[in-house]
């Protein structure tokens, strides 16, 4: 449909200091959000004709982010910084991405392999989660022979914690399986490093010149009160949220598993709500107990996303704010109830330091207790491999992700710092670059700190409101299908059109990639003609045309190259022809058309 190009003159060049739209600054992997928004807005109205265009957009995204099909269901960090939120609502970028993914996922099985020539060294990636897969993908593209060592029988890591009503299984498996196929990555399943037989040194001896360790946080945190772990966490009926969600993802838990049972979930984060809403869909009566309070803007506010809380509340889940757990009561080895004093404060200046008022205590009875208060890395294994420092923390150079104790080992993802899926992906990409530099003997730090500056919102006369997100009514949601309705083609085009393209042209180039223009024009000011009348400043929507002071109490027009979109309005409005578009072929084409009259 379009003759899209990704390379050559349409490549977006990185720079040490780069101006970007705020969404792209916020995205840890700086995805080309603006470009894809523009391309989506230009899709044809006919859904069949649009399929080809969607495929092209997907291919472009896949080049740099093979997990993009997953992002559209679970991420949305970019929306937090969208300039439009001050004028009517952030662009629903996650749904736009999901729109592409909705079609693209089903074509992934047919996507051709990259067939990269792998003539560089062998690299091992320990951990088949998003961090490891991104690292493997990137290194494969650079020509390294990568092998992924995955402890479980399937790739995906913590992505399997996400319930299917948010991330359909088909989307996840298609993304994971095809990633390794397309990039030609070798995967060894059921290989746990540190299981005695398999150590990092052994891998080194097998010929791997570098290793990226990204095993994530497999160990659920136990519940504590004060400094000590609570007793009773081994009672029957007590389980950990992470284990529970993994079990559900394997398909081992039947539909009405919790029918007639009361399930209590301890925890206030997004994972706790995933657990709660999953349990609800399995027939349980669910209540959530968390330390934090309801007011999200306070320091002690509940960390879970507003959408999760709203969804949970709609589904009939009870939330008990500001409650800790002092004791887990059981009878004959079976869980019975928890004792919950009021939590008066969670954080103070020293950090996490919950304080309780035991005079105000409630008891919550239940059949099942699911503890979801976080998870941690396998510290024992890390220690055995000699990757920790004397304080028990990961000995790692934060700028290059290289281990300080063993220079051929790199670490990233949740094991380094717990975060979102896309943050782990960023670590993976970052480590790939570090590994390449390490292999090629290049400086590890040069040019790695990139400062991005976010551009402001362009002026517009037509700010529109964001479209509402449509959810299935709660009573119809008791299954594991998606409850959020995605965009239709028409809705996607309209929403993408709403994007104000805040970022500079040089970091987008959407128009050039589909041949709308041949090159990015630039505006130049002939200062000897500029009288300082300021009409250009009044008409510029992007804050690019500005007046600067020149000696003698006068002003002259200038252009901020990063804000300028070369729309040409200042050129037309200038009464003295002081502003000119260089690289725009309008005059040539116009004279040609005139001559042909």
């Amino acid at each position: 449909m379009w003759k899209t190009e990704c390379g050559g003159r349409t490549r977006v060049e990185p720079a040490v200091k780069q101006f970007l739209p705020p969404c792209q600054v916020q995205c840890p992997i700086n995805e080309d959000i603006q470009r894809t928004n523009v391309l989506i807005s230009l899709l044809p109205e006919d859904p069949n004709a649009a399929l080809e265009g969607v495929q092209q957009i997907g291919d472009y995204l896949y080049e740099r982010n093979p997990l993009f099909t997953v992002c559209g269901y679970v991420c949305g960090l970019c929306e937090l910084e969208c300039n439009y939120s001050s004028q009517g609502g952030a662009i629903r970028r996650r749904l736009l991405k999901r729109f592409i993914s909705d079609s693209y996922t089903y074509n992934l099985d047919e996507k051709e392999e990259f067939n990269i020539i792998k003539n560089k060294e062998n690299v091992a990636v320990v951990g088949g989660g998003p961090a490891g897969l991104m690292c493997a993908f990137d290194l494969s593209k650079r020509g390294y022979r990568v092998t992924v060592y995955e402890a479980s029988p399937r790739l995906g890591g913590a992505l399997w914690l996400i319930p299917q009503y948010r991330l359909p299984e088909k989307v996840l498996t298609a993304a994971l399986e095809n990633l390794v196929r397309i990039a030609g990555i070798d995967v060894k399943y059921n290989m746990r490093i540190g299981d005695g037989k398999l150590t990092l040194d052994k891998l080194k001896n097998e010929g791997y010149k570098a290793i990226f360790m990204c095993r994530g946080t497999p160990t659920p945190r136990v519940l504590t009160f004060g400094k000590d772990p609570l007793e009773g966490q081994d009672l029957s009926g007590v389980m950990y949220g992470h284990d529970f969600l993994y079990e559900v993802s394997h398909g081992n838990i039947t539909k009405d598993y919790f029918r007639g049972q009361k399930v209590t979930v301890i925890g206030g984060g997004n994972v706790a709500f995933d657990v709660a809403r999953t349990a609800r869909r399995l027939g349980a009566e669910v209540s959530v107990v968390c330390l934090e309070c309801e007011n999200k803007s306070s320091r002690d506010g509940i960390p879970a996303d507003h959408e999760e809380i709203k969804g949970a509340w709609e589904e009939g889940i009870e939330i008990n704010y500001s409650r800790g757990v002092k004791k887990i009561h059981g009878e004959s080895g079976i869980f019975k109830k928890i004792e919950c004093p009021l939590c008066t404060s969670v954080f103070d200046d020293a950090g996490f330091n919950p304080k309780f008022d035991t005079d105000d205590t409630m008891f919550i009875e239940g059949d099942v207790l699911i503890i979801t208060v976080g998870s941690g890395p396998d510290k024992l294994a890390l220690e055995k491999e000699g990757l920790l420092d004397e304080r028990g923390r990961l000995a790692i150079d934060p700028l290059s992700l290289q281990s300080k104790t063993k220079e051929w080992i790199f670490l990233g993802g949740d094991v380094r710092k717990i975060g979102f899926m896309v943050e782990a992906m960023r670590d993976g990409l970052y480590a790939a670059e570090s590994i390449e530099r390490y292999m090629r003997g290049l400086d590890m730090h040069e040019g790695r700190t990139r400062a991005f500056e976010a551009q402001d919102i362009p002026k517009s006369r037509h700010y529109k409101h964001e479209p509402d997100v449509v959810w299935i009514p709660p009573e119809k949601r008791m299954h594991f299908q998606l409850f959020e309705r995605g965009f239709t083609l028409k809705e996607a085009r309209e929403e993408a059109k709403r994007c104000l393209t805040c970022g500079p042209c040089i970091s987008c180039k959407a128009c050039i990639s589909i041949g709308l223009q041949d090159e990015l024009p630039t505006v130049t000011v002939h200062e000897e003609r500029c009288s300082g009348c300021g009409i250009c400043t009044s008409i510029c929507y992007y804050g690019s045309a500005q007046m600067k002071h020149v000696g003698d109490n006068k002003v002259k027009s200038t252009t901020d190259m990063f804000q300028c979109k070369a729309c040409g309005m200042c050129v037309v409005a200038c009464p003295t022809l002081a502003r000119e578009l260089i690289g725009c072929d309008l005059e040539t084409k116009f004279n040609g058309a005139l001559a042909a009259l």
Partner: protein
Amino acid sequence: MDEYKPNILCFKCNFGWGYLDDKTEVKAIVKNMVPVTCSGKVDTTHILTALKGGADGVLILGCNQGECHFQDGNYQTGKKILLIKKVLTSFGIEPKRVRMVFSIDPDGNKVPMEIEDMRNEISPFGPINIGKCAMAS
């Protein structure tokens, strides 16, 4: 008998009109077409020069109001067109010879129709007569 067919010079915004076209089809049918990245780039001098240069009419195809990729390029040109029409009337030129259409047509299929439409509208006026410029002696 030769039927008078007005010469129309057409400015076509690339973001709204014909960007899905294969770049050869519409161009083959429509002569005298100037693709522009935004209708906001069309200046008064372009329109007047076109009319002086032999165009019987000037057609500008821009995007819908509120949908300009550059926020308001079409709106700016729309205002210019209204003023130009008033100026043309003083110059003795029919204001209908300059027209701006605010719409969207990614396939470019409607472009020949828009031009034909405009041709039909201005052909009763005859060829453009800017005249009165020849030296009398």
